[in-house]
């Protein structure tokens, strides 16, 4: 009996070992890419746009038999993890994608608030990550494994400064921003420094902060209106923009607002309505009046999902294509996930120029693209119409 027991134990161990080995050495012909995006939380429309754009790209490639790498076609598998628009959840989502799902690269997170911490994790675990939408410099700074598809706030800030100085003939500015959001805080600081450099010290007459969950901004806006600025700069997410703009009008503000790229969601106009008409914001692309590949993308997206894609959708499309380009440039797919990640990172770092639908971009040593920004005006029918393009 004893011998039998030992034998059965041995058999069990053999079976388990065989399963384990089979799991490891299975010749896979799929490539897994993870998405760390906000499907719920404060900005669910951003996550939805990312997912829709990625699904469209995946269908394109898989319907042609897969992505061709070194003469062999690989099917793409995209895994979407919800980061709830929270920093801690973004880190957990990244860990899950890296450790459990074994993805070769991660696209996302979109907001800097999540991209900065998640970037740290990806860099540590040596997994290539590309954030479509994050504009805060810290996301990629000193992180060879982290890339992005969007321009940076040190570039966006001056764009907003120069445009509003020219467009509104403004001498003084006021800023209201979200103190708990890396993106909003970073951009507000850059804007303030840049504006005061241009217009002299004290020309930012009010610099007010609020919390992420705040719904009433009347105290801050009363303070801002009391300082009588020429315009108000709001580097905030679209959901807060809708409330801030409405409340400023309630308090009697008649002047202009200037916004940043976080305004550019398809949901801005359903929430904000006529209060936002005529305002300007800087962003990554203008959907109205687009041409070439960009127009093809917009039309297809609109046909498939029923609304004009916002900048996040376009940037996710570009970011995912940069990853795919990296996989193809590597020239081969190896079974070991760690080695494959290294191949992809090196190939992505070697991409010198990329023609995306949000404009052509060159990459610098930090993995940041050098690309143009556009300023759009919100038209009467709620479209984001091209006003000006600014290139570095």
């Amino acid at each position: 009996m004893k011998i039998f027991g030992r034998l059965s134990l041995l058999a069990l161990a053999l079976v388990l070992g065989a399963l384990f080995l089979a799991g490891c050495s299975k010749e896979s012909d799929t490539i897994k890419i993870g998405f760390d995006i906000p499907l719920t939380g404060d900005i669910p429309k951003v996550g939805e746009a990312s997912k829709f754009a990625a699904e469209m790209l995946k269908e394109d490639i898989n319907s042609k038999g897969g992505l061709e790498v070194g003469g062999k076609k690989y099917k793409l598998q995209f895994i979407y993890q919800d980061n709830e628009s929270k920093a801690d959840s973004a880190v957990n989502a990244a860990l899950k994608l890296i450790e459990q799902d074994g993805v070769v690269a991660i696209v996302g997170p979109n907001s800097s608030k999540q991209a900065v911490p998640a970037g740290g994790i990806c860099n540590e675990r040596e997994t290539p990550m590309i954030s479509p939408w994050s504009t805060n410099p810290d996301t990629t700074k000193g992180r060879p494994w982290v890339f992005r598809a969007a321009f940076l706030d040190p570039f966006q800030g001056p764009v907003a400064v120069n445009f509003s100085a020219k467009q509104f003939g403004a001498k003084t500015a006021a800023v209201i921003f979200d103190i708990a959001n890396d993106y909003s805080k970073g951009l507000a600081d850059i804007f303030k420094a840049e504006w005061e450099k241009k217009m002299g010290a004290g020309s930012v007459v009010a610099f007010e902060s609020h919390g992420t969950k705040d719904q009433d901004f009347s105290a801050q806006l009363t303070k801002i209106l009391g300082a009588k600025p020429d315009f108000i700069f709001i580097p905030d997410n679209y959901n807060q923009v809708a409330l801030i703009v409405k409340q400023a009008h309630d308090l009697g503000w008649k002047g202009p607002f200037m916004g940043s790229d976080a305004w550019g969601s398809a949901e801005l106009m359903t929430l904000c309505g006529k209060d936002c008409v005529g305002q300007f914001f800087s962003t990554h692309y203008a959907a109205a009046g687009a041409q070439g590949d960009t127009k093809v993308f917009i039309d297809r997206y609109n046909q498939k999902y029923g609304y004009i894609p916002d900048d996040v959708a376009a940037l996710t499309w570009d970011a995912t294509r940069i990853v795919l380009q990296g996989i193809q440039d590597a020239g081969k797919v190896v079974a070991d996930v760690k080695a494959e990640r290294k191949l992809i990172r090196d190939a992505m770092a070697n991409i010198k120029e990329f023609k995306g639908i949000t404009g052509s971009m060159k990459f610098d040593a930090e993995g940041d693209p050098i690309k143009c920004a556009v300023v759009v005006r919100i038209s009467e029918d709620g479209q984001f119409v091209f006003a000006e393009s600014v290139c570095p």
Partner: protein
Amino acid sequence: MEFVFQNILNALQWGSFYALIALGYTLVYGVLLLINFAHGDIFMVGAYIAYFVATLFLATVGLSPSATLTLAVPLTMILTACVGVTLERVAYRPLRRKGAHRLYVVITALMCGLILENGNLALLGASRKNFPELLEKTVYNFMGLSVTNLKVVVIFTAIAVFLLLQFIVTRTKIGMAMRGIAWDKFAIPLMGIPVDTIIVFTFVLGSGMAGLAGLLFAMSYPVLEPYMGALIGWKAFIAAVVGGIGDIRGAFVGGFLLAFLEIGVAAVFPSTLRDLIAFTVLLLIMWRKPTGIFGVAKHQKI
């Protein structure tokens, strides 16, 4: 001076919401000595009910905005009251019947709040809802102050609700029964007072007011999301405790006190310090008077 008066107006509007929500906490506590932590989420449900009622009458039936508003006020209050009563029937009453300690009922209330939040998330998705404009917005300007007609409506509604509830609780028979249950819930049934009916009535009042607050809130801040009731609910609860939970005047005073502190701090100091200073002041008040401004010491509180 303008700056000060403008901020007083801001604080009156913001305080009206705290007061309306705090009234619900205080009513239930006053009768059952139960902290109904789901109340903030009942307020959220009220805002969503208002949204569905409003879009139904505006878009589907095609009524004018003013007619919609007239219908939306009673309907929202009634439907939200139903939600509150359902919660009482499903979650709190069975526990009371089994004689569970109040602690367990409080935990149940917390869970009910989370269920309402996440149920909404699952049912309607994370996308925000935009509340339609029911009241043609007019901005009045006088002496450098700006006030919208909506702001005036909100402030006067809060005052009217306070007077009404104060009247019901202190001057009517049913109010006397409500106070009686809080006093001694074993002796009251012996007097021939139907305890369950009184408790249901309390939930109707509290949840109805939360529904009204939800409607007005959705009109003032027209972006709805599933978690909108959580933070404001917590703060209103704190306001009720500082005012003296169980006392209608306490909820009213506490709500406005918190709003004046928040707006006042944000107006003078950097707005980052708002919650820090506001809640430090409230802490000092509690430290001086642990039962709140209007509260009287009772035994066996949780």
